[in-house]
């Protein structure tokens, strides 16, 4: 399996990747190197609203540090 934390870090910080993931989670996970089973698990376990809220919170923290 690809590095999960690296994938999550990208998902939390890359707006374009996150938008594509939210539209087609399993397909984008496969594109990032996850096999079918892991991609389906990611799609099932990542809640869209939670991901959006978390990413927004992290973006705000990053902006405060600049």
């Amino acid at each position, binding site marked *: 399996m690809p*590095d999960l*934390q*690296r994938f999550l870090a990208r998902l939390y910080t890359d707006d374009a990747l996150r938008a594509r993931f939210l539209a087609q989670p399993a397909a984008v996970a496969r594109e990032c190197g996850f096999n079918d089973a892991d991609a389906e698990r990611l799609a099932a376990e990542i809640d869209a609203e939670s*991901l959006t809220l978390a990413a927004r919170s992290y973006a705000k923290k990053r902006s405060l540090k600049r």
Partner: protein
Amino acid sequence: MRAGLGWRPEIGAAILAHADRIDVVEVLAEDFVEATAKERRALRMLASCLPVVIHATTLGLASTEPVDAERLEAVARVIGWLEPESWSEHLAFVRAGGIEIGHLAAPPRNDETLEGLMRNVDAARRVIGSLPLLENVATLIDPPFSDYDEGQWLDLVFRATGADLLLDLHNLHANAANFGFDARAVVASLDHRRIGAIHLAGGRHIEGNRILDDHLHAVPSEVFDLLAMVDTIDATIIIERDGHYPPFAELLTELDHARSAALSGAALHG
């Protein structure tokens, strides 16, 4: 048991002016990694007035990648010249693959994370000379590929690393609200002998019926209720406030409330 506040420059003068009502202060390590000689003297002076503990936020010990050696050395230098009673870090990852997330991200609660955490905690112990207290983090997203619930995860972490717990009760309260579990059941399941410190804070409700742990609000009653369940006899209790500071008397009242709840907890465990 003793109770104190997180040291923030905005309330530093008030902390010193009311040192008789504050048992301990918690200093953020990263605020002092580039401290001038004058700033170091000031912090040592603080430490001569009140017991000081150190809290680190950027090591990312729950990362599957090795802890950043330069950051670890920097925190070690602060601990070296301040000589705090203890130090702590979070059960979080903050970067991966060269990407800085910007804040504490909850890691997947699984064996792969546990292995990385064990390596990083051991590295930190070797460089700093003591184990950190490890703090449970708040999160708005339940990390995927989590094989353990929050209580199981904390139990595993402390068995595997040997480190004790910095139990953040607002983080636990927020996660319980955000993901629908019982915070009281988690508190009841913990080995209270392994709770070395406790954090209290306040947050706010946001969309999706979630709680954001922003440290900008008063400690809610639910968190004091959780504190009253904990065996606090040997614990250091810290109220974290990062902004929107109220009149200092309100923070002192919160400290009194914390002491009262903590005494209830200590009495409960007799």
